[in-house]
């Protein structure tokens, strides 16, 4: 299949034939989009190939990147900071000419973290841009700040606005996630769950490939 295969792979936007070494499970959201694209006969005909209806954004490529970062030492006085983690995503699969149209970070927690935080506590989540070595850029305000009184199995954070300017193809993305607990009146009662509550993180990116961009500009 030699030259024909490489020509076909190139037309599919692949530089070489993938040979997955440790393929992970397929995220349910991708199965959902895949099956929706095959079953829903749209009133006007086929699904539009350059739009992801699940998120209602332009795009023809949806990728899910697994986090390759590590837990970082809390550094702050015990009890206040529950968890500090470097989130590291290898985005080298993004190709020249692709335009980012949506970015969504998913934090997954274990069931046993549902007791976290304890009554009267509030969890504060902050996400910072970091250097690949995991150091938050000094003085940078957080990309995302959220507080919540109850953990859920999965937490989705929209990073589209934050990433659209900085994620050029072929780069990695490094973020530092901090989760701290504060009680009423600022005193923290009891330790917070920390890294054992944490299950996994993934980054979903929607991009518009060059061919779609050309088609859209023609239209």
């Amino acid at each position, binding site marked *: *299949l030699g030259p024909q295969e490489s020509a076909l792979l190139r037309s599919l936007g692949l530089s070489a034939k993938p040979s997955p070494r440790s393929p992970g499970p397929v995220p349910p959201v991708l199965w959902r989009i895949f099956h929706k694209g095959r079953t829903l006969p749209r009133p006007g*005909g086929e699904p539009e190939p*350059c739009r992801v209806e699940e998120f209602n954004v332009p795009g023809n490529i949806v990728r899910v990147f697994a986090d390759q970062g590590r837990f970082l030492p809390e550094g702050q006085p015990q009890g206040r900071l529950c968890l500090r983690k470097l989130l590291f995503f290898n985005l080298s699969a993004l190709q020249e000419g692709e335009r980012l149209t949506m970015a969504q970070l998913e934090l997954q927690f274990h069931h046993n973290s549902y007791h976290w935080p304890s009554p009267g506590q509030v969890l504060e989540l902050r996400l910072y841009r970091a250097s690949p070595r995991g150091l938050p850029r000094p003085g940078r305000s957080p990309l995302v700040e959220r507080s919540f009184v109850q953990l859920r199995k999965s937490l989705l954070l929209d990073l589209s606005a934050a990433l659209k300017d900085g994620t050029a193809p072929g780069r990695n993305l490094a973020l530092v996630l901090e989760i701290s607990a504060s009680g009423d009146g600022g005193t923290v009662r009891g330790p917070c769950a920390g890294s054992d509550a944490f299950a996994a993180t993934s980054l979903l990116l929607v991009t518009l490939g060059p061919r779609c961009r050309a088609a859209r500009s023609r239209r």
Partner: protein
Amino acid sequence: SAPSPPLTPSPLCKPRRLYISFSDVGWENWIIAPQGYLANYCGGECPFPLAAELNSTNHAVLQTMVHSLDPQGTPQPCCVPVRLSPISILYYDNSDNVVLRHYEDMVVDECGCR
């Protein structure tokens, strides 16, 4: 894999069945879904007089006319895809990320003489 043409194949230009199975080309270990799909292809003649359903251009009508007068000098028009549709493919990329990608123009829905 295209089944052998039926005993009395219609000679006219139209979509013919072609199923592409990714395992036939050894891609089943990185393409998650679909296992294959109905791509089809265009086959058949564009004879004079060009019938209306052959979805042809005025130029093709003229070309068939000239071909019928001068078969050696001017070929018949070609039977080509005139309407295609996209498919989505779910696959692992070279970094083991899971990717869902919409590809345009992957299925031949309609053929015509051009």
